[in-house]
Each structure stands twice: as C-alpha cells, then as structure tokens.
C-alpha cells in the first residue's frame, strides 16, 4: 500500500532570492531517487507538502511547470516556523516533498479559450506554473489570447522579475504588471494601481470563450470579484484558487474543509460558481 504521508527525499539544488526584502525565495529541488520524479507528475495549479524533518510540513503551491523537467520549484514566503527554517537552509541540504496534491486548473476546458490571469502578491507562484505551461511551444497553440494582470505592493516585491521581462518582450502574451506604489523606483514604466483597478481597465471583454483565473490575497479577491461581475464574466468562467490551513493534504485530517469540500483534495481550484454554493469559511 502506497503511503501518502511519506515524503519523497529531495535535495535543494538552487535558491533564488526573489524580492528586495528577501522574504520570498524560490527553491529548486531535485529528487534523490529519479523514479520519484515520475511519481510526482503534476499539472499546473497543484501543490505539494514541503517536509522538514523535525520541524513539520507545510502546503506550498508548485511554481515550476510540468514542462520543466528534472526539478520542481516552490516559491516560499517566510511566515513562521517551517518557512523560517526553510529560508535558513542551503543548497545541497536534503528534505522531503509529498504530492502532487489537490486538483489543477481545468486545462481540458481552458484549451481553445482566451485566458486572463489575475494574480496578486505571492499567490502568483502557481500562476507562474500555468504561464510557463501555456507558453511552452507544445502548448501555446492550444490557447487563444493570454492576458496576465499581476500586481505587487512595490516593484521590488514582484516575483520572477527576469521572466516578467522575457514575457513582456513576447508578442503572444499581454502582460499588465502593476504596483500599489512605485515611489521607490523612478524608472518604473508599468502600471500603478491595485489589481482590481487594472483589471477593470485591461481585462478583455467577457464572452463564452474567455476564462479568468484569479489567485491572490483575500482582499484582492474580494475587490476583483465585483469588477469581473461588472465586466460580465459568468461565474463558471471565473476560476479561483484557495488556501486554508492544511496538514494531511489528502482529505483525511478534517482541517481544511469548506462545507463538504476539502480545499486540499476537492480544491484548491474552484470556480466562483462552486464557491457561491459553499459557506464563506476561507
């Protein structure tokens, strides 16, 4: 019997500091046993449990794309016990990963459609996974227009700055990068304003072939939703990714449920239509 609570051993292969305050780092892991990489086959939108022996386990969205082979990446905000230990670890250190866990963005439905990605703060990690996946030469033709609206508090808090530039330079994706405030960067040449405001200005018109993927802090989601309503997006065309406190990640510990759904197993991805039928316990 496969033990879903047993992590795969991995080695930290690279660590990249993402933001100027150093609160976010991207960890690149390689599997100690190559066959475990195969078992960890994932889709964009899923998450894993990072496991540090002696400290515990935490759910983190997978930041790398299934099209990137040989490693798996997670971008982690230094929040508390486990994340602080992770931030103190070094290249070469060994730890564990469980997963992949949860559902993913509904790629079968999204194929052939216009996609608007709306992300804020460090919830952008699984959206990176999705963007890299869609932009891959094998996949790009499966999607129509791709728009990305991504906001952070300041320019220095944007994740994946090199990739943002590379995407900006491409003509098969429309990037709408924004910051709440650019005071500390006189050279800032993109948008200034909150994600909902930029969404209202830049999001393509709603139609049956356009899907919005929204992922961000609760406050951003709260104010983005009325904007999408105003733009006429149907609730089954708005796809959200939730977070809840998790432990097992496999629907057993009873911690992360919202109504009868488990965020770890039935989610983290839900349409707004589904969320409307669930209690607001997130």
């Amino acid at each position, binding site marked *: 019997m496969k033990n879903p609570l047993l992590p795969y051993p991995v080695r930290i292969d690279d660590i990249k500091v993402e933001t100027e305050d150093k609160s976010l780092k991207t960890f690149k892991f390689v599997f100690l046993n190559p066959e475990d990489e195969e078992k960890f086959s994932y889709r964009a939108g899923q998450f894993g449990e990072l496991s540090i022996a002696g400290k*515990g386990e935490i759910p983190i969205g997978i930041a790398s794309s299934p099209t990137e082979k040989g490693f798996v990446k997670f971008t982690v905000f230094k929040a508390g016990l486990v994340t602080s230990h992770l931030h103190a670890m070094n290249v070469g250190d060994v730890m564990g990963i469980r997963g992949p866990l949860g559902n993913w963005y509904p790629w079968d439905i999204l194929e052939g459609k216009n996609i608007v990605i709306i992300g804020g703060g460090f919830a952008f990690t699984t959206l990176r996974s999705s963007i890299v996946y869609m932009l891959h030469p094998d996949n790009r033709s499966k999607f129509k227009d791709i728009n990305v609206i991504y906001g952070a508090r300041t320019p220095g808090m944007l994740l994946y700055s090199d990739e943002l530039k590379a995407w900006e330079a491409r003509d098969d994706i429309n990037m709408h990068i924004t910051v709440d405030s650019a005071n500390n960067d006189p050279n800032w040449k993109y948008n200034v304003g909150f994600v909902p405001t930029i969404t209202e200005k830049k999001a393509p018109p709603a139609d049956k072939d356009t899907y919005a993927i929204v992922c961000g802090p609760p406050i951003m989601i709260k104010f983005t939703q009325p904007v999408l309503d105003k733009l006429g997006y149907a609730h089954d065309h708005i796809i959200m990714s939730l977070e809840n406190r998790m432990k097992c990640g496999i629907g057993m510990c009873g911690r992360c449920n919202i109504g*009868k759904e488990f965020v770890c197993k039935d989610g983290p991805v839900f349409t707004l239509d589904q969320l409307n039928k669930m209690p607001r*316990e997130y």
Partner: protein
Amino acid sequence: MKVVKIDKENWAEGIEKIKESYKVFGPSKSKEFHLFKELEKGEAPDLNFLNTRLSPKSMFFPQSEGILCYCLDPNKKDECNIVKEIQKDYSPKAIIGIRPCDAKAFTLVRPNFDNEEYQDPYWIKAYDSITFIGLACSNTDDSKKGMPCSSCFCTSAGCGPFNEEGLDALIVNTDDGYIIKALTNKGEEFLNKAELSANSNADELTANINTLKKQAEEKINSFVETDKLKDKILLDLHSANFWDDECFACINCGTCTYVCPTCWCFDIQDENYGDSGVRFKQWDSCMYPLFTLHGSGHNPRSTKVQRFRQRFMHKLKYYVDKYDNGIQCVGCGRCIRLCPVNIDIRKICNIMNSYEPAA
C-alpha cells in the same frame, strides 16, 4: 454462518484458547468506568458494563501515533533528514465486547481513511488486523446493565442494540449463557479458534436472538429525526439563526469530539529526541481555534459559533451530502453524557431536520 450457545462457565476457557491465536482486547473495569485493554493470561473480558467511557477507536486510531521517523545527525550523511516509515505490529487482534454502535461507527469512518484516491496505511492495516466480536445491548438477570442509557438513540441514528454492521460476530448475553453468532469468515474463524463447539440448534438460537433484539429495540426511548437533512440546502442551514443560541453554553472543550467514535480529525506533529525524531499523527478537534488558524494569522473559523456549527454541520449535513450514507453519528450518546454544559446532539439534529428558512 455458525451460531453457538455456550455456558458462561465455559467462556473463560474459550478466551484462553483464542489468546494463542490473537492478542485479545476487552472491556475491563478501571475505577468507575470500563475501558478496552489487552487481556492478560487468565483475564476474561468484563461484560458487565453499559459502554466504555471512551470509544475503542484508539485501537486503530491511537490518540497519538508515531508514523514516520528520521535521523537528524549530520554525520550520518545517507540518513540525515530522510523520513522513513515506522514498522508496526499488525498481527491479528480480537476485540471482544465492543458495542454494536461503536463497531458501526468505524464503518462510517472508513471512507475517510480508505478511498479511491488515498489510503492511510496505518488506519487500514490496524483496522483490518482486528476481529470485531460485538456484544449486543440486552438485559439479563445477572446484570441489569447492558441496556440503553437514557442518552442512547441508536435506533434512529442508523444503528441499533443488535446491529451487525462492522462486526465479525455478535455475542448475545442471555439468562443461561452466551449465544455467539458468526457474521463473517473472520468471525467464524474466531469461533473455531476458541473451540466453542455448536451444540445447539441454530434456527432456535436465531429465533431466540430475534426475540431479544425486538425487546431491546423497544426499550430505546430516545430518538432523532434525520429524514429531511438530505434535502435541506447546505447554505440555508449554515446561515440559520439558531446557531448563536445553541452554542451559547459551549466552552469549546473538545470533549464531544474526543469521546466520539465517528470523529476522526487529526494533526501531524514532529517530536525530536536529540538527533532523531518521530512524526506523529494525533487526535485534534474542530472545536479548537488553532485547528484552522492560517500561518498568516487569518482564521476562517475564529469564533465559537463557527466551530460549534462546524461539528454539527459536519456530522449531520456535510457527511450526509458527501457520502449519502446516513448521518455521521451512531447514537452512542457519549457526547451527550460527557458534555460539561449539557449540549445535546439530539436537540441540534432535530432543529436542523425541521429547519425552514424564513421566506
């Protein structure tokens, strides 16, 4: 399947015989309550009890169970920080004298730990290693006990004093002996290993059981209404106005969840001992605020009423909707008897079942 009747005097002999094949657990008196413990040589289960104070769920879902282990010694390069499975004893066990409600409870819990997507090997292997020998709730001369408490409501909670679900054999305590009815191959094997031979007429014994069953069921005089729960709109019940009043007295102590045979929530924690450590799985409770507290400080169930509602909604609506398998409660009444402020799931269930949102 085999049905036998044995003299109570022969019982001890049978118990000793089966200790050769199983580790045997049974109710044993400890201070004023009974609990399930491994029976030592010469010790027979004490069947003179209403029900154990705690449900026997800890037999396969221990309150705290080491599941994984690891080494933290940096000098041991090949082992350091690698998490491994702890090997456990899953040799055959027999649990004698479990009440039908408790046995049924574990069948309600099973889909949580054993489903198409994921299997918890610890729960499953431990559960499957056990032969469940139930004790029907019937009255006898040598004991006025064994009859329902005023807080038992099993018959309307999808169970009953002679319920057979989840059991491998059922013991019926009669005036002049024990009738033991095998229900599964595991139960039959148990009878064979106990070398309790069939010396009576099976049809007669079965008829005997059925009479006692009817009598016992008639003695249960406490009920819940559950027929309308399935049809209620989840959000209507969730936003109903009775929760504030009903939760008023609750002190979020969590007792109701710990004593409940159908509560399964757990936590996972690491505990270190020098340069090694163990990852534990341990009972947790939706009644506690830390249960849902996010790393960011946000808590989706930060108030008492939200946590109180969670427990009852889970048992009486979420479970009903998710599994279509009745309510997640077998009517054992433990949470009613042990709640320090007299919160009664029967009352909440009836309120939920009859709730109509204001038009």
